[in-house]
């Protein structure tokens, strides 16, 4: 067996035959998707108590209408089977008396602070005068606002509910005053939807395959999932490569290795081991994903057709990123030092994360195309585009592969030079400029 393959075999088993690998397989998706899951979980854990809101109503009708709406809302929140509400109910209390001044507002504020009320709402009398159609230009009519006072007023769900409900009540009342039937307004406002559907294709037997509706969430999150999958496979094989290089330097294994094989053979072997490890990770995630998709009956949404190209870009990405990680591992005396040197590299690797939404929305746009030819971002951006578009023009795929391939080759050669020099050097961690000098001059 030739030396790179012997080294690759050792690297592969040192990567996959560990508890850390198995834990990483579980932890990585949790880290990547955990935010979404936790947000949804927290959303369900909302307070289901009663929120009492004081209302100072300057009109003679709005409070009653709001109270009816709140009661209807509260009733709708109750699960008929369990009898339990799914969210907090609203109880409205009218504050009678003359129009409030600042002293009255302060007193109510103190009652909110004392938790007697969740918030208080001040509806000025001018709301009533705004129910009549203006005589002049409607846009020049003065706008009257309602004030919602609370400790966290800007982000309050209660305020949102008041805004929606008062909006509906006031506009309904305005139509009524103008002699327009609400059902006519509802009909007039009902715009025809624009439904997203896929492009039509011709099947191998010559018939035309009808377009299929495209789910908006799937259109956004499927490409993101594909990009995340590539990131996980790359990261999970590149990080151990860095740690192994660091170990080989710290424990003088590099001397023995470099006395047996040359730096390029060692680097190549390590990269092949990393690639094999990343393919193992991909296979595991695909199998789990497939089983989950079958369970939820969404197998048809898995874009199997992009798998070959995904694999090509994944292999290139693993080699590109791992070679840089290895060079940095070899240049460092500790993991902490390596993390410092990795910062600029991370910025480049994370470019797809900063731009993915734009790329998914405009997969043929200039940003998406430009990033497809920028080696550090190209593999993940191409994965995004393939998942978003289904097909990317062949020339773009070919050019992207050619550019990343050339960059990967140069990167591996440069990293091997750094690896050879850095592995044997002791003492201070080299500066970034020094690393570049080693990479260029050897």
């Amino acid at each position, binding site marked *: 067996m030739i030396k790179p393959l*012997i080294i690759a075999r050792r690297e592969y088993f040192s990567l996959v035959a560990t508890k850390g690998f198995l834990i990483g397989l579980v932890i990585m998706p949790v880290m990547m998707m955990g935010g979404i899951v936790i947000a949804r979980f927290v959303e369900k854990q909302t307070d289901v108590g009663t929120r009492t809101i004081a209302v100072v109503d300057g009109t003679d009708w709005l409070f009653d209408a709001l109270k009816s709406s709140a009661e209807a809302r509260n009733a709708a929140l109750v699960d008929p089977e369990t009898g339990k509400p799914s969210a907090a109910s609203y109880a409205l209390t009218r504050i009678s008396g003359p129009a409030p001044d600042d002293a009255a507002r302060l007193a109510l504020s103190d009652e909110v602070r004392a938790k007697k009320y969740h918030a208080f709402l001040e509806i000025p009398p001018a709301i009533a005068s705004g129910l009549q159609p203006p005589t002049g230009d409607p846009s020049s009519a003065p706008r009257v606002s309602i004030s919602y006072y609370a400790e966290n007023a800007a982000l309050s769900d209660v305020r949102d509910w008041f805004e929606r409900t008062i909006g509906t009540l006031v506009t309904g009342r305005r139509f009524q005053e103008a002699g327009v039937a609400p059902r006519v307004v509802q009909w007039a406002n009902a715009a025809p939807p624009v439904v997203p559907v896929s492009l039509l294709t011709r099947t191998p037997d010559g018939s035309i395959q009808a377009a299929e509706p495209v789910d908006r969430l799937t259109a956004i999150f499927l490409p993101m999932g594909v990009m995340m999958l590539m990131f996980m496979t790359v990261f999970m094989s590149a990080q151990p490569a860095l740690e192994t290089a660091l*170990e080989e330097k710290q*424990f*003088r294994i590099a*001397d*023995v290795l470099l*006395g*047996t*094989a040359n730096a390029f053979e060692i680097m190549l072997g390590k990269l092949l081991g990393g690639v094999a490890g990343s393919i193992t990770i991909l296979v595991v995630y695909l199998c789990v994903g497939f089983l989950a998709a079958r369970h939820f009956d969404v197998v048809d949404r898995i874009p199997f057709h992009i798998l070959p190209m995904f694999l090509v870009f994944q292999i290139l990405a693993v080699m590109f990123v791992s070679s840089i990680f290895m060079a940095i591992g070899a240049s460092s005396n500790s993991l902490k030092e390596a993390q410092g040197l990795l910062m600029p590299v991370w910025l480049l690797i994370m470019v797809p994360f900063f731009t993915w939404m734009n790329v998914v929305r405009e997969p043929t746009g200039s940003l998406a195309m430009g990033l497809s030819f920028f080696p550090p971002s190209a593999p993940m951006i191409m994965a995004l585009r393939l998942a978003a578009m289904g097909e990317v023009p062949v020339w773009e795929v070919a050019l992207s592969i050619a550019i990343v391939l050339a960059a990967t080759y140069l990167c591996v050669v440069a990293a091997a030079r750094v690896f*050879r020099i850095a592995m044997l050097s002791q003492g201070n961690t080299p500066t970034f400029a020094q690393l570049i000098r080693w990479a260029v001059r050897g």
Partner: protein
Amino acid sequence: MADPVLRIERVRKCFGAHVAVDDLDFQLAPGTICGFIGPNGSGKTTTLRMVLNIIRPDAGTIELLGSRARSTVLSKVGYLPEERGLYRKMRVADVLRFFADLKGVARPRAVIDEWLQRLDLTAWARRKVEALSKGMSQKVQFIAAVIGNPELLILDEPFSGLDPVNRDALRKIVVDLRSAGVTVIFSTHDMPVAEMMCDTICMIHRGKKVLDGSLAEIQGRFAEDTIRLRADGDIAFYRSLPGVNEVNAYGPYAELRLAASADPRRILRALADHGTVHQFEITHPSLHDIFVRIAGPVPDTGSDGQPSAARGVHDS
């Protein structure tokens, strides 16, 4: 002389402004054990790394096992670095298998089992390297160096961290390997071991070769300016003896370094007048003493630029 196993000619290596190896010439005869000595930072490791093709010389040529393309013959060279050099998370048998495969060993399992048995490590074959003591790691590392049945074996402090039993066991193996035709370069700071085991000694200092030859040849270049003795007396008394420049006391034994004008007979008389003399030997300096004279902290230099301590060298 048969073709040398290693031929180094006018080799130079600089790191920036620092000259690590300066115009080094060296030849190593097959089937010998050569002690490669020198103080820390003298250029030993750099030289060995150049021999192993890990780093390239700036100038000069290195011929290894008859080939200038050293990478083609590396599978015939075994290398034991000083301390460590093993993957901690791997099992002993697996790490040896890895190095055996890299060296292209046929029937690696049998060879590994044989070596493990020879060094009393069979019970540790399935244990991880990190679970081994320092001495055991050293023995595993030694196996990794010799597993490829090398023609040239490069050992860097092979006995450090070993207890006397294991030290003797490894020493015996090294001698056996030499008897089987293996050439050994052996870098060490342990001068008595070098004196005992090495056929030839090469010392480099500040990148230059300062000694090369058999121990007898090297010692012959120095005057018989040393008295080894075991007698009644203490350091202060020895220092008061006429013509004694320096005293090194090792428990009951002492080494007295004499000035060129000193008369050993006067010194013996003084010792006998003072008490019993058990041993009195006028001799050449030991390798340790030679090493210290050359590499010791002597700031002034002679007209030839050599350390003044080396000026005791005779023309032979």
